[in-house]
């Protein structure tokens, strides 16, 4: 099949040799993309991407600007549906269910696959309302107490609770950039998703706020499958277990983060991680 002709296949074999116990071939991937093409008004943005994403781990997508990593990320929760003229072909499955199937309700899909955006974008409402909005529209909590619990739990998990517990009714836009981004993460996990997609979540933050988010990502991977797009190779190296390198709309190579950054098999990956291109 097509899958066998890509770079992915031999490398997966490679990695399974390192961790034979957990990375067994029998463990089905959380998300599987096969032959994914995306075009914007006829212009091809990503070309034949095949990628398996493991459950409860962090997968980083790296690559130079315009390489299609964000486009690929937005295919997973069908955010690309909102862009006029965007066409997605190929197959993406979440727990072996076709994400683009005709019986899939995007509302349900996006509850299962949360997203954190490049620019922190809390709703211009109170901190409480930001977190409570998702559970409320999905009917996960109707009573005030249940909702309060969800809000507290989500904020605790996002590492924001201690900073905001005294001012839950304060406007979210009054928080610092890093706090706002953690609030967005709290908002995403409030609806109990399986997967969290993060689109360059630290690109607008200072190093200290970035470090806090990275710690948080490390904590969250025990519960969620995380896919993160990042410009920073250091960040990818720090937070991800597996790293995928995109270049010019193609998935060049995917492997354990360690291998990608120390001993990549493709020349383009080597050139990017050593800083000669990108």
């Amino acid at each position, binding site marked *: 099949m097509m899958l066998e002709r890509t770079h992915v296949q031999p490398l997966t074999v490679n990695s399974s040799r390192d961790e034979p116990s957990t990375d067994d071939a029998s463990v089905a991937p959380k998300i599987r993309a096969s032959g994914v093409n995306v075009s914007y008004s006829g212009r091809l943005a990503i070309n034949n991407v095949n990628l398996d994403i493991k459950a409860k781990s962090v997968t980083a997508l790296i690559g130079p600007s315009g390489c299609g990593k964000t486009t690929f990320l937005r295919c997973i*929760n069908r*955010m690309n549906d*909102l862009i*006029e003229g965007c066409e997605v072909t190929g197959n993406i499955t979440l727990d072996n269910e076709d994400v683009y199937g005709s019986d899939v309700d995007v*509302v*349900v*899909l*996006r*509850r299962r696959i*949360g*997203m*954190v*955006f490049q*620019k922190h*974008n*809390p*709703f*211009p409402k109170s901190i409480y309302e930001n977190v409570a*909005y*998702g559970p409320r*529209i*999905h009917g996960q909590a109707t009573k005030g107490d249940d909702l309060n619990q969800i809000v507290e739990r989500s904020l605790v998990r996002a590492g924001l609770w201690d900073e905001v517990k005294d001012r839950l009714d304060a406007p979210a836009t009054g928080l610092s950039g890093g706090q706002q981004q953690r609030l*967005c993460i709290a*908002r*995403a996990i409030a*609806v109990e998703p399986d997967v969290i997609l993060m689109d360059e979540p630290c690109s607008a933050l200072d190093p200290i706020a970035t470090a806090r988010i990275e710690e948080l990502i490390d904590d969250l991977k025990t519960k969620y499958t995380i896919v993160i797009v990042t410009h920073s190779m250091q960040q990818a190296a720090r937070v991800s277990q597996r790293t995928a390198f995109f270049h010019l709309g193609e998935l060049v190579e995917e492997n354990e983060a360690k291998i990608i950054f120390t001993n990549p098999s493709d020349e383009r990956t080597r050139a990017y991680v050593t800083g000669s291109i990108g």
Partner: protein
Amino acid sequence: MPGVVDRHRGEERFRRLGLAAIAISMSFLAFFLVSIIGTGYGAFIQTAIKIDVDLTYQEVGLEETFTPEDLAGVSYRSAVRSAMRTLIPEDLGRRESRALYGLIGAGAEFELRDIVLAQPELVGTITSFWLTASDDVDLYNKSGLTEASAQQTRLTDKQIEWYSALKTDDRIVKRFNWTFLTGSDSRDPEVAGVWGAMVGSFFALGVCLLLSCFVGVLTAVYLEEFAARNRWTQFLEININNLAAVPSITFGLLGLAIFLGFFGLPRSASLVGGMVLALMTLPTVIISSRVALQAVAPSIREAAFGIGASRVQTVFHHVVPLALPGILTGIIIGMARALGETAPLLMIGMVAFIADPPTNLTQPASALPVQVYLWADSPERAFAEKTAGAILVLLVFLLMMNLFAVILRRKFEK
């Protein structure tokens, strides 16, 4: 450095030109306001004459016991006239008597009747009443008695003589003209008021607000948030933009043909007026609402979609609330334009002489700008100040609406 000097000179020149432009526009505005207020303030002041009306039983022709019907049947005109005659001791001929009665307003007998009906205990006494003077006396009294105004007046020398006698007798005062705010249109300037026109305008604006709010805002939300971008929506967009530039009288013709001609709705009704104004306001409301919706950051939509909100939830929980200040401003500006609009109302017959304020949407009604138009056309000189007065009332309403828009925007932008 010659370049720097030139550049500074250029900036200075531009600054002065800008100031001159502002000065010109402000002076036009000031001129307009001064002339309108200068003419119009007189509409809010009226002249009253004190007369002693003999309401004794034999004089008004009532028994000691009388019913309210009897009281309503009394000839208050002759009561007023005999009271006028007692003011002037001379013996008057027929023609002179008529000149004397001309000093008191045409509505004086009705004022007297209303007072007596409200206070029947006045019957049997001789009581002093302040009753509205005629428009000629009113103008003469307000003109400040300069040489020029004395020549302009329509009062005869004899009437001026009587007027002076009454004036020295402290029987003539100026007072606030409530009639102007509580009365409706009349052939007699001294009893004409803007209340009827205000009610008509209020009804028409209410209809217009309802229609343009629902239809306009929903259209804007649909086009901006739900409709696909294709030839068809582009075509709609171009047409809406064109409609905003269509002369308002065209909407009047459309209303005449469709609402009156086809649907057979009543002529001159404020309902139809409101519908026609809504047609005219819709493009404005749609365009400004769309601009307000476009101004909402796309990241908010992404945030809502990303958390699994449906399109309707995204739009009505997040986008519309954020766009609300802009939408409301658009609606109020549209309403203010509709309030000042005359031409489409002329086409559907809201230009008739309406002496009673409408009590429902289908009754014949007038509107403030139409009232201005009607009075401006009247031959009586006293209507000139009524016209300016009505314009002042209109301006006050427009000012209030704009103020309301500002307050709303401040409130929602917090």
